[in-house]
């Protein structure tokens, strides 16, 4: 009875004990089931704070108002007032500290995201004034003729 049964049992118990001890050191203290129960809420609590601390990059139009009053004022009274500055100029992050300047995208592809005419009956897309990019003054930047901040024509 003695050794050949008990010896492996000791080994197994030793391994289990080792795992339990190791677990105390490796698993963070805030690891647990928390609010949403075992099935959905088993996690490391401090990870929620880590996600909250992620850097905000898009600051919205209000952020631009005081420093670019001319562009802001022009834009806010125009048919393009619904478009965020940062959609065309990229995220402000900590502009003007970093980056000191935001990019200026004069490409036609920026404008035809909305203005390439697509005749889709139940989509608001077909209600935006559209052009055929292949026909409407091709090879020229849209901003040569249209003011991107205030494109209103009459």
């Amino acid at each position, binding site marked *: 009875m003695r050794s050949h049964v008990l010896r492996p049992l000791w080994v197994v118990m030793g391994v289990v004990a080792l*795992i*339990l001890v*190791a*677990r105390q050191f*490796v*698993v963070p203290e805030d*690891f*647990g*089931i*928390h*609010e*949403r*129960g*075992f*099935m*959905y*809420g*088993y*996690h*490391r609590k401090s*990870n*929620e704070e*880590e*996600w*909250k*601390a*992620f*850097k*905000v*990059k*898009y600051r*919205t139009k209000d952020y631009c108002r005081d420093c670019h009053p001319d562009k802001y004022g022009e834009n806010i009274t125009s048919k393009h007032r*619904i*478009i*965020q500055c*940062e*959609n065309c100029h*990229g*995220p402000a992050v900590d502009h003007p500290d970093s980056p000191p300047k935001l990019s200026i995208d004069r490409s036609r*592809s920026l404008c*035809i*995201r*909305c203005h*390439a005419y*697509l*005749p*889709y*009956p*139940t*989509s*608001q*897309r077909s209600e*935006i004034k559209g052009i055929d*990019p292949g026909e409407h003054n091709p090879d020229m930047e849209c901003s040569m003729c249209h003011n991107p901040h205030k494109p209103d024509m009459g």
Partner: protein
Amino acid sequence: MTTLRGAAASALPLAAFRFLTRSEARAAVEGAKVRWGFLVDTYKCVGCGFCVKACKLENEVPYDAPVTRTWVERYVILKDGRMLADTPLGARDGFTGMEVQGVQVRKREIAKAFFVPKLCNQCENPPCVQVCPVGATYQAPDGVVLIDRSWCIGCGYCIMACPYGVRFFHPVYRVAEKCTFCYHRISKGMKTACVDACPFGARQLANLKDPNDPVTRVILTQRVAVLKDEYGTKPQAYYIGLDENVR
């Protein structure tokens, strides 16, 4: 190292032995003041893709890699019954032409055509969370499903488990990645980057626990639908104008 820690954590979840009393459990769920949800109006979406661009830059998802946390699908249903659908680069650069899936569509052939923005549904019963072997993905008390990057072992089970295909493998961090409803923004009282970027109000964030939230009122009082209701995942992204062809 992460793999090792993950294995150790899963080996014997001692915390699992602590049961909440019934009132504790109810307080935890019902006492919460916030439950984030989303409302998409497919009539308003014009397919400009600014939401996708903003999401990628805000959340540092590699811009040129073919992965994205949110995307916009185009559906074109032709009069002959054919359905065409595409989402080039997740619509990061918008939709600018009539060609869909290699077919040059003409105006008179179109029966229906529309755009459907997609993002994580932050399901009430998230199947992606259930399958995680190490407790690296979880549902926060406000309903948002998050991934703990330092615990994820990159096994990919959750990517397979999501019926909506919103999860992917992050090419830089080499862990599972998904939409967080811009957790860093909504927890500061801001809107998500995609909501702010949308010029047409096609995307809206809602606190479903607040009956006075104007977006929640729309969800409660108007005709809305969810994606793949039959899976029982209880998705919390609601859609106005959903079509039977949308999957």
